[in-house]
């Protein structure tokens, strides 16, 4: 009853290898919305509640793309990017999620080579999935 047979999966999933997205977001409700949308769109999705857990998952499971929140209490997005740089971890494409689109907040991220960001309040989950697809198509 709880099993999902291969034949019942959408055709697209059988034709293309499933791409792996890691969502690093401390807010439970927003994380769930993103995970639900990405799973619905056919991605394999993993999640992390802060930059520490996120960086571990990046090194272990090598996702194809990371959605990274900036303001997180334990280890922020910027702190994670700094730590990755220090440990020389090569990162997959990163799209930053933020609610502060000011240049001051983003400058530290841009300094670390991440050029794509999404202002959460200005975007819908559907648009975020579209941005993820578009970014992965360029890889």
């Amino acid at each position: 009853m709880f099993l999902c047979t291969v034949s019942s999966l959408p055709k697209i999933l059988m034709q293309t290898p499933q791409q792996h997205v890691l969502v690093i977001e401390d807010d439970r409700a927003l994380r769930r919305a993103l995970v639900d949308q990405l799973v619905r769109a056919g991605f394999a999705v993993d999640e992390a509640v802060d930059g520490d857990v996120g960086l571990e998952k990046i090194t272990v499971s090598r996702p194809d793309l990371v959605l990274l929140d900036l303001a997180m209490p334990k280890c922020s997005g910027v702190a994670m990017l700094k730590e990755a740089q220090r440990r020389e971890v090569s990162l997959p494409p990163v799209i930053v999620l933020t609610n502060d689109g000011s240049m001051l907040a983003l400058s530290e991220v841009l300094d670390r080579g991440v050029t794509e960001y999404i202002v959460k309040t200005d975007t819908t989950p559907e648009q975020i999935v579209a941005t993820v697809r578009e970014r992965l198509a360029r890889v």
Partner: protein
Amino acid sequence: MRSTAAASLHRVAPSSPAHARVELERFKLAVDCATDHIVVTDPKGVVVYANQAAAQTTGYPVEEMVGKTPALWGGQMPTTFYRSFWDTIAVHRESYRGEIRNKRKDGVIYDAEIHVAPVLDRKGNIMSFVGIERDVTETKRLSRARTEFISLASHNIKTPLTTLSWYAEMLMNGDVGALTPSQREYVGEIRLAAKRMTDIVTSLLNISRLELGTFVASVEACEIAGIVRAALDEAAPGLRARQVSVSWYADHALAPVMTDRGMCEHIVGNLVSNACKYCREGGTVTAKVFHKPAGHEVYGKTFSDDRLVVLMGDEGIGIPEAEQRLVFTQFFRASNTTAVSVEGSGIGLYFVQEAVTALGGDVWFRSTPDVGTEFYVALPYQSPRLQ
């Protein structure tokens, strides 16, 4: 009090030297006891008089201040500031009003509002300078604390607001099953409220950035006409519902403005939203974007540089004349807005003025009650403020 003073004046003849001495003494007493710091200097800036409040503000006894220049408690500003300050009061012989940072005798730095005016003789020569200072350190600290609180609160409100709008969006999209028409209407109301609140919070955050001085412009070539057109297109469904028509004009081949796109979008968004909200049913909202060369008058103003001008007008209730001077102040809502049940937070135009100023531009308006209001924004193509 008044009768005693009047009685003492009657004891001497009005034009006698004795009368002049009494008048002078009374005037000196008033200045001595004034609660604002008052200093008089000679034409070279050497202090010849300081009142008790000046001694309190600076921490230097009056006798230590007399014979020295205000550099005794100043010198905390860049050289360029003092150069332009002296240029104003000594070369142009005009009064100077502004803010300054000074240092007390005990080493404590304080912020002060200053007003310095040259006193001229009949030939126009400088006889002395009169400087008035008011310590605004505490006022500024409180204002900063308030702004920081708004910034923090707004950031924390944004996350649950995002949750509201995302989940409303997912429900509308039928992600967890199709909604009935009534359910769609209800969820639509939630989505709309979340959007309205997001706009308010974004404005508050932008204001706090401007007030705290943490706004960093991202300068790029901006097609202002396109930004105005996009804001009008977004407002179109609401305008159609109220039979409001749009009159649109933009000069051909307008040069782009080197400015901050996000700020411009918020400025234009606020002006368009106001024009649409306050325009009467069946009326016309007017939008014009055009070039105005330096030295040419535009709606009562003339600028020394080329400007790109945006006009946004409505045929609405207008702003009562007595309240027009308050339009750009925080939380201002005209008294006649309640009669037409237009919702507003009272921060939109305050934000517009702060933002336009930060971009090196000017904003002003003309309004006639029961006829309508026109707002004008004139942006420089390149602003030295943004370099």
